[in-house]
């Protein structure tokens, strides 16, 4: 993991005209028209990421701070926080997801139109964070949703969120529309609507979506 600020090189517009042979070959195989369309499409999407206006807890304040004058997420074209999920492209899960809230988060996700992305902002959204030992706290939103970018921190600074957004833009710019590595939303074999868990006697039923949640063998042995 890169922990050094200087190591994270942000190049929003990488130098053109420096194609490698492999890239040329790739381009030829794809067809120039398709590739150019893909590039235009990805450029448009990556510069117009509208997040859903949806704050959960402490991190939401830093999310708001990222939208305020000093950090100004608007520079990336992402200041239009849509209150309705129907018009949103990005869900920033900013804060602790409790078990009472989790079904609603999944419902909102399902209500968002494709293509959609998810950023887990802060320790609580990633893993339950400091509150993970609580009986009503979901240990990470990735139990129910596919998370594209995790931003650790408690709470992450607004710059960290902007950095996450830039990483997401890079991810979108690199997405393919065809082939085995095609993006999630164009693949017919991937269902991006996820079942909404129900309230059970102590926990959500089911307590995780096994299709998404696949932790490695636990190191606590």
């Amino acid at each position, binding site marked *: 993991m890169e922990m050094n600020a200087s190591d994270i090189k942000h190049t929003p517009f990488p130098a053109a005209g420096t194609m490698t042979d492999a890239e040329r070959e790739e381009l030829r195989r794809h067809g120039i028209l398709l590739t150019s369309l893909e590039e235009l499409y990805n450029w448009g999407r990556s510069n117009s990421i509208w997040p859903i206006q949806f704050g959960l807890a402490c991190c939401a304040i830093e999310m708001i701070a990222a939208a305020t004058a000093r950090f100004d997420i608007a520079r990336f074209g992402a200041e239009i926080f849509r209150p309705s999920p129907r018009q949103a492209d990005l869900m920033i899960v900013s804060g602790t997801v409790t078990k*009472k809230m989790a079904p609603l988060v999944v419902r909102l996700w399902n209500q968002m139109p494709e293509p959609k992305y998810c950023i887990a902002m802060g320790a609580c959204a990633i893993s339950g964070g400091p509150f993970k030992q609580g009986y*009503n706290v979901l240990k990470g939103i990735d139990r129910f949703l596919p998370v594209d970018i995790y931003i650790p921190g408690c709470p992450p600074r607004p710059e960290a969120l902007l950095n996450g957004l830039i990483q997401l833009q890079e991810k979108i710019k690199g997405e393919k529309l065809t082939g085995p590595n095609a993006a999630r939303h164009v693949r017919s074999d991937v269902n991006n609507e996820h079942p909404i868990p129900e*309230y*059970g006697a102590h926990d959500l039923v089911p307590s995780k979506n096994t299709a998404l949640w696949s932790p490695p063998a*636990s190191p606590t042995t």
Partner: protein
Amino acid sequence: METVEQLRDRLLARFPSAAVAAVTNPGAAAEHSLLLGAAQAREIAEFLRDDPVLRLDYCSNVTGIDWPEKEITDTVKSTVPDPAGGPSKVVETKTVRVEPGYLEAVYFLYSMALKHGPVIVRLRTANRTDAVTLPSLTPVWRSCDFQEREIFDLFGIVFSGHPDLRRLLLWDEFVDHPMRKDYVEPDDYEWEPTAHDEVLVRAKAHQAAVAAAAAAAPVPVVNPTSSAS
């Protein structure tokens, strides 16, 4: 402001049949409290609110507390004279008794009109299982509304006379009262990379359960439930 003892005596004079006791707080804060019997708690509360000297018009905080059964070992020292005429011996007799558990609601009362307080009032249930009803003080102080609902939700004290006693924080399908000391949390420890102490114990229990379940049959792991009221 009167001391707790004076207040107790005043209340006993006003409500002769009521159960009122002073509870001392041994801590540094030394904020002593009054233990009221559940039967007349509502009338006493109204008196506390309306009495012109007290005018405790503001109930600041309501705390629910769970006191589970405790095993208490009493050590009684008795001096037994030596029948042989020698120096008398000190004999320690240990008796183990089980102190019954109860649930408690503590009300912190202040006076906004006279700017004094706090008067701390405690109500106790008879036990933790079936006799968990206390009179609601929400009709006296509306500020108890959400707090009593929260205590009902998390501790399971049933406040009779509460206008809208529903779970406050958890969902309605929830069956237990998680703030009780013996509540067992849902078993949820697949990924605990930094577990230690209690977490490690629970995580290991989870892994053992999963392994056992996998060995036996593909049956989902059922959450262990604690004392459901």
